[in-house]
């Protein structure tokens, strides 16, 4: 469908996987958070190779701009002890690796067995399609998502509210 040079896809995929592995394997959690930003930006590049320009922009704005910064705030507010030893593995280091590798091998095997009915479609901006659906068929879930965000934000403020014990 998409007539893109495979070099772009392989390069961006290598950045995605390499920085995701760096998120997991880094011992310093601040480095993990920065590699997480790199992962989010390169996943936006993957969306761009799929010609989904709207979601690429949303990915950079929401994930790299908001969620990653919130995680950095979380790191800064809970730092304790030596920061270079702040992101270690727990006792499931090896059995977790085994299960994740088993899941990956199983998934790739099943994908290699499956034939997908790929169809060619129009290639263009996706903003119009998304907008028509979002404010047409999916307007009730859209409002529900807005209420969910509001409730989550108020709840987060209430849970994390600071220590005046008298209130």
């Amino acid at each position, binding site marked *: 469908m998409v007539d893109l040079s495979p070099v772009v896809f392989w390069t961006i995929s290598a950045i995605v*996987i390499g920085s*995701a592995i760096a998120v997991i394997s880094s011992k310093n959690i601040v480095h993990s958070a920065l590699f997480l930003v790199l992962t989010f930006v390169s996943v936006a590049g*993957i969306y761009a190779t799929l010609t*989904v320009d709207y979601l690429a922009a949303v990915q950079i704005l929401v994930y790299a701009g908001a969620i990653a910064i919130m*995680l950095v705030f979380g790191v800064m507010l809970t730092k304790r002890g030596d920061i270079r030893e702040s*992101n270690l*593995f*727990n006792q499931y280091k090896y059995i977790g690796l085994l299960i994740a590798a088993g899941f990956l091998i199983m998934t790739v095997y099943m994908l290699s067995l499956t034939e997908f009915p790929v169809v060619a479609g129009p290639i263009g901006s996706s903003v119009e399609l998304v907008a028509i659906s979002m404010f047409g068929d999916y307007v009730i879930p859209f409002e529900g998502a807005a209420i969910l965000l509001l409730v989550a934000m108020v709840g987060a403020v209430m849970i994390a509210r600071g220590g005046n014990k008298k209130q």
Partner: protein
Amino acid sequence: MTSIGLQHYLILAAILFSIGFYGSVAKKNGVAVLMGIELMLNAVNINLIAFNRFLNPDVSVGMIFAIFVIVVAAAEVAVGLAIIIKIYRERLTTSVNDIDWLKW
């Protein structure tokens, strides 16, 4: 050179999901567990958008679902971080091994 098809995107998403899963089960720090969950949600988004673009490009259901996944991810990370900060105030730790109030 072969062109890039749906399978390439699905395998990329599977690898990213496995990395996120490993991070969320094998890390000690609660914030790192949240990072692993974010990686898994990103992998799901790649899957949804790839299916939408390759199998049914005339409608936008996959993209709408991806937007809702992003919304839920934002809500989840806000509440999760608030809980971690609260636990840190009570116990001065963010290690998931020390959060065992519900065990007996």
